[in-house]
């Protein structure tokens, strides 16, 4: 990511010396056509198109019948959307904190020059190779009240044991959270571990000479030094949270009722199932807005003061 900000490397390609600048470097321009089309037509064009049409009352087909902010007013007065936002907030905050804490703790433990480091790392990271669909279906099975974890503990003799998050509207989002953290925390551990390995050995020597304990050294000295790594992790987790969709579809399909709906699912339901395009466009524009709100402070922290290349 940092590479995008590097001042353009001092390797101006050999100019052909032809008079017309438009035809200079023609092959490169020709070869870049797919990139230019993707960037301008799909990314910029598609996004602007969606934003513009979110102000229309399009139903089954997109129409240019502009109705101002009607779709947004309806969006924010729809209970399903409010539930989605609330779920995303709970999932988001919990997932951010837990993933960071688990990721950093595991990375710190693996950093203690232990044996079998590769084995442990392989174990913590393998869920990341699996799709959200596989993750969701697996945890749906483990959390199944009749056959899963709850039943096993009851069979051990604890008759009143209750652990059935997926069937209770109040706790369903935490059931999804368990699966989400299982899938994603290995990646953050890996990034944190790379960050820890980048820290100078001398820091540890100095801390030891000063008689600072291991845990305290991690929390007071190493953690503040890892700021860039932590910010990158935060952006990664946050952009993953907003995209949360497949996991919910596989694990609960939004249920029970609408208790585990999320914004990404709301958008797709309205666009492709309920045939209410305008609502879908408005909801997706709100998603875009939230990404911008997250990214601007980050971009400011990362690139603030420096000129972009």
């Amino acid at each position, binding site marked *: 990511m940092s590479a995008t900000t590097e001042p353009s490397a001092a390797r101006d390609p050999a100019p052909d010396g032809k008079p017309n600048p438009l035809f200079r470097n023609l092959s490169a321009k020709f070869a870049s056509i*797919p990139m230019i089309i993707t960037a301008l037509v799909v990314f910029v064009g598609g996004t602007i198109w969606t934003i513009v049409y979110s102000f229309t009352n399009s139903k089954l087909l997109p129409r240019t019948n502009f109705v101002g902010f009607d779709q947004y007013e309806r969006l924010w007065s729809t209970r399903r959307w409010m539930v989605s936002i609330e779920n995303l907030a709970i999932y988001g905050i919990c997932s951010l904190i837990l993933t960071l804490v688990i990721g950093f703790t595991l990375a710190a433990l693996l950093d203690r020059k232990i044996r079998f480091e590769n084995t442990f790392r392989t174990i913590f990271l393998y869920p990341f190779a699996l799709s959200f669909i596989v993750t969701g279906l697996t945890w749906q*099975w483990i959390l199944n009240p009749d056959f899963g974890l709850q*039943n096993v503990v009851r069979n051990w003799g604890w008759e009143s044991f209750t652990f059935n998050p997926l069937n209770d509207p109040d706790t369903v989002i935490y059931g999804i959270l368990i699966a989400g953290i299982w899938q994603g925390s290995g990646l953050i551990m890996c990034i944190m571990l790379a960050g820890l390995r980048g820290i100078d050995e001398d820091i540890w020597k100095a801390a030891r000479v000063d008689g600072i304990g291991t845990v305290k050294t991690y929390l007071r000295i190493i953690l503040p030094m890892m700021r860039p790594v932590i910010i990158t992790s935060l952006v990664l987790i946050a952009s993953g949270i907003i995209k949360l969709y497949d996991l919910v579809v596989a694990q609960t399909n939004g249920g029970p009722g609408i208790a585990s709906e999320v914004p990404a699912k709301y958008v797709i339901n309205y666009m492709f199932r309920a045939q209410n395009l305008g609502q879908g466009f408005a909801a997706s524009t709100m998603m875009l807005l939230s990404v911008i709100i997250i*990214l601007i402070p980050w971009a400011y922290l990362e690139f603030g003061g420096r000129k972009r290349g």
Partner: protein
Amino acid sequence: MADTILNPVAEARGPRPKKAFSRANIFIYGTLLLVSVYYLLPLYVMIVTSFKGMPEIRLGNVFGPPLEPTFQPWVKAWAEACTGINCDGLSRGFSNSVKILIPSVTLSILIASVNGYALANWKFKGSETFFTILIIGAFIPYQTMLYPIVIMLREIKLMGSIWGLVLVHTVFGMPILTLLFRNYFTSIPDELFKAARVDGAGFWGIYFKIMLPMSLPIIVVAIILQVTGIWNDFLFGVIYTKPDTYPMTVQLNNIVNSVQGVKEYNVNMAATLLTGLVPLVIYFISGKLFVRGIAAGAVKG
């Protein structure tokens, strides 16, 4: 570590003899083992469930190993499980996924490597601007671009077809792959490029004769990244294909979460494992390269 705090001088006298069972070590290994259980349990449960018969599952011990191991659930998941009216199992989804995967991976890597090469060695006016837009585009939620792409695919008559999905994967893989290749080509010594220019090689000559053969390591990383990413995709598959061309993930979800009929948990788990097998095999074979791939692909989120 407690003794270090109490007596820092002892530390300075040279390497301490290693104690295998210090309190710190017990804490570290204990925690790691406990956490490993949380990570490994689902895989274990999937495997044992998929080898049990339904009567054994109804007994209710998900953690118990299968008493009478049977391959029947795997056979059924592969060849007989039903989605709607089709009852030919996951095999169709598997072949669709392969048909989607191979052209998507090839096309996206080919285009991205040429892009990266142009950006690194043949900058032209505006090339950096397009690249910046491309990278910012990677952060836009897919939802804002889903419908415009439906319209575009309809226009070129590819909506619902495998090639339409291939194009979508190529487009959305482009930011990260272009970044990967651009950074790699920028790190190749400039002299090599200049020497080739002096010898009269042009844009494509240098690309095919020098840059492409040299970029083998990064191509491997890109392949790992794209194969796992595209295989695991659900969102694009469910939107841009139709039931005949559904990729494996979509078909899996339809099989497991179908409302009709008795739930066959063993078949479901076998199907889930079958779908997860491809990325898992890649993960265990590629090892460190996978970590490099996801560290780069992490941008994609």
